């Protein structure tokens, strides 16, 4: 089918305005939040509801045209970057809140509903949606499902998969399936679990049934400053060893602090500060004070130079807004950044971070670290200027070396950003060819002709994609 005919038939389904074909107009769809890998899609189509998605997919499948689902494009692993002539199916128009059932702590949203907005809708009633990736003001719940997104507060509350109970799935050939439901554990195989984190390679999730949680009765947020990241890491281990499970345990290192303090969401951390640790404890009001006191003491013992508890909800809000915009503030360090997502055992934080810094020195690259210390989920932001010839190759090499170091320490290559194109080659670090073949066999049941977001996750395709980018 030629481009003209394709556009005409897509427009017949979704309307004139919501099909983009002009190459100039397709440019903003060439990448996601990771700007290293770029490629134009063949066309972009933005359906308005599940039925339209199914009709679009049927049209494409009939003609053997591969497709990529895309939420807000805030992903960081190039999971929505085309490899060869895919049509992009944007879900950003599908933002409806289909149902809120507060008595049973459930909500049903369309895939394009943004994460934070769900909390905003129910917070007056004392509820919230727990997974909180830093991009939550913009990212979609559909995208969160695709990547099994995490966030600062997943230490205590779990990642997306712990909060998704059902999905509507448009299969590779345009059939609409409803998997799972409102029950906490649906009978039969956990197909919902299979979908969460499948990165759009098994069909398109168009509706999601999620759990809502009661807002904790109280919060205490502790901020502690340290002269070294290793002291801050010691404090993290101390808190966990004391038997507490805080909502979040977050560390930023010197470069990350410089970035956020240069941006508009500054807290006022001292200049040249080596490390800041943010700890949220929440739950029943009773006992929060003693927990916070114990944490203050652990931080002091670990050698902090300053530690205190947020005095007001506004102050707590400022601390968290500052932390959550750390990636976006990387623009204050360099025009581009690539972020890694390695996971390590918490006990290896200091050791692996030393290796991260060494890799930075080796390649002469500035690396800012901001990480979910409680989960051992590192986010080294490798800063660079894409205009410098040859630098992207260096950034990619440094990134892979960092992931290899995580794996050597007993960890793995991704905590919450997904594999996408970016980490395909690194899959070989953690899986044998047999492992990968087994996973591919599962994939092929649901996408037998490789039409659903092809060229992602599985490293066999890595070389081709890299060559084409």
């Amino acid at each position, binding site marked *: 089918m030629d481009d003209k005919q394709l556009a005409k038939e897509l427009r017949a389904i979704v309307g004139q*305005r*919501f099909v*983009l074909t*002009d190459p*100039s*107009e397709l*440019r*903003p*769809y060439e*990448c996601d*939040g990771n*700007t290293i890998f770029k490629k134009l899609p063949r066309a972009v189509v*933005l359906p308005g509801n599940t039925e339209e998605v199914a009709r679009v997919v049927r049209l494409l499948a009939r003609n053997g045209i591969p497709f990529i689902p895309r939420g*807000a*494009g*805030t992903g960081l692993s190039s999971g929505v970057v085309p490899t060869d002539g895919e049509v992009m199916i*944007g879900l*950003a*128009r*599908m*933002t409806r809140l289909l149902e809120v059932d507060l008595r049973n702590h459930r909500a049903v949203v369309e895939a*394009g509903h*943004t994460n*934070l*907005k769900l909390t905003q809708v129910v917070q007056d009633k004392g509820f919230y949606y727990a997974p909180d990736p830093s*991009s939550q*003001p*913009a*990212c979609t719940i559909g995208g969160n499902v695709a990547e099994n997104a995490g966030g600062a507060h997943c230490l205590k509350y779990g990642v997306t998969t712990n909060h998704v109970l059902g999905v509507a799935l448009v299969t590779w050939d345009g059939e609409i399936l409803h998997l799972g439901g409102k029950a906490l554990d649906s009978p039969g195989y956990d197909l919902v679990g299979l979908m969460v984190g499948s990165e759009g390679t098994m069909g398109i999730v168009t509706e999601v049934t999620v759990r809502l949680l009661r807002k904790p009765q109280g919060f205490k947020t502790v901020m502690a400053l340290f002269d070294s990241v290793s002291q801050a890491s010691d404090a993290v281990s101390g808190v966990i060893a004391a038997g507490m499970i805080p909502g979040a345990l977050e560390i930023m290192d010197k470069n990350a602090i410089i970035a*956020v303090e*240069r*941006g*508009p*969401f500054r807290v006022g951390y001292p200049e040249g500060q080596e490390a800041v640790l943010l700890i949220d404890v929440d739950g029943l009001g009773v006992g929060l004070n003693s927990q916070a006191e114990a944490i203050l003491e652990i931080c002091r013992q670990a050698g902090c130079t300053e530690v205190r508890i947020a005095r007001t909800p506004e102050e707590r809000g400022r601390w968290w807004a500052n932390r959550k*915009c*750390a*990636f*976006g*503030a*990387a*623009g*204050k360090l360099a*025009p*581009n*950044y690539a972020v890694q997502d390695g996971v390590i055992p918490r006990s290896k934080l200091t050791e692996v971070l030393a290796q991260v810094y060494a890799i930075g020195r080796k390649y002469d690259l500035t690396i800012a670290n901001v990480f979910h210390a409680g989960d051992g989920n590192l986010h080294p932001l490798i800063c660079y200027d894409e205009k410098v010839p040859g630098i992207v190759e260096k950034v990619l090499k440094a990134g892979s070396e960092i992931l290899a170091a995580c794996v050597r320490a007993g960890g793995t290559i991704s905590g919450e950003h997904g594999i996408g194109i970016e980490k395909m080659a690194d899959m070989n670090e953690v899986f044998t060819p047999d492992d990968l073949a087994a996973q591919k066999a599962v994939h092929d049941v649901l996408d037998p002709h490789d039409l659903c977001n092809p060229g992602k996750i599985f490293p066999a395709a890595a070389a081709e994609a890299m060559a084409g980018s």
Partner: protein
Amino acid sequence: MLQLRELSRVNLEACVHCGFCLEVCPTYRELGIEDDSARGRIHLIRNLAAGVVEPTPKVLEHLDLCLDCRACESSCPSGVKYGVIIEDARGRLEKGRRRSFWDVRVRNFFMKGVFPRPARLRSLARGLRWVQRLKLDRAAVKLRLVSRRTAALADAARVPGRFGSDVLPEFVPARGLRRYKVAFVQGCVSDVMFGPTNIATVRVLAANGCDVSIPAGQTCCGGLAFHCGDLEQARRQARQNIDEFLRADAEYIIINAAGCGATLKEYGDLLAEDPSYAGKAREFAAKVRDVSEFLAAIEPAPPTVPVPLKVAYQDACHLAHGQGIRLQPRKVLSLIPGLQLVNLAESDTCCGSAGVYNIVQPEMADALLRKKMSHIAASGAQVVAVANAGCMMQLRLGVRQYGPEVEVVHIVDLLDRAYAAEPGDGREQHG
């Protein structure tokens, strides 16, 4: 290839594509199209500058659809000044653009012939006033000479009986003890369309111990020309205002329109490359204060007359996002006894007015206005207080088109009422 100025390039480089600006962008929220978001437009402009993207009609459509509301700037972790980028790009693209004969004539007529020339603007407004008084506008709708929307727009923009400049002298002394020496910017459209608000503003300033001078030689701030990309015209107007206002030798330059205020505060940038004006422009810009910003900072005289109304405050984009002024207007309103400030959902989302946007992009402007009016209805407010002439006109249009029946006024109008009937206040009633 699009050649951008240094300031735009610096800001483009600071964008790392995180997408925090997506969801706050009114046009993206409306359409879900990346090209119609701040990040998407930055990506287009970046690629236009790199020569990768051509300024095709489709691309220009996406850039044209931007409201320039700058909500994206408020959400940007890297502090990217998107307004600088889009205005620069638009200005430069304008030169290579083929617009229709009439489009060019109409633009030039207003940008160069009317807004910068107060006398002409007043004559035109007088004409419009007669058209409205004789109900010729309604006749024109009946005869289908103009669309119903155009007529509703004109109806929302009823020209008051007197212009601000008909009433305001060049100098109004402080009432009571003199505390400050200020100069008042009466604006171009504000002068003729919102004379009563301007008069109220001067009265409120005088009541707060301000000697107010109103330089006669002032002109339009240049914002309209600036936003349409005509930087040269904007600079001419800026120089004239700088000369006029610095001569007045005031401590502060006060403005009651958010859009103009944002432009006035940017004079330093606008004239940075003009050696004979750069210093004066910075001096001027440093003195500019929005009226609510000024009042909130000076411990205003407490108003005593109760205004027992439920009031919703609609943030003006160029106040909240452009100048970071959010708390001050609310603080000023909360001084008024009896006034109940109610919560307005999405109060810092653009109403669709955006300069001449509601005229050149009626479809999107209406969609945003409809949403705004439904939030206003849900707020239960009797009055909507605004801080900008454009928002006032647009929301009045909203009341007519979609309801609810709320009164739309400027913050200082309410404050003026609360000061108005004070005992011993022997001043004349204006407007």
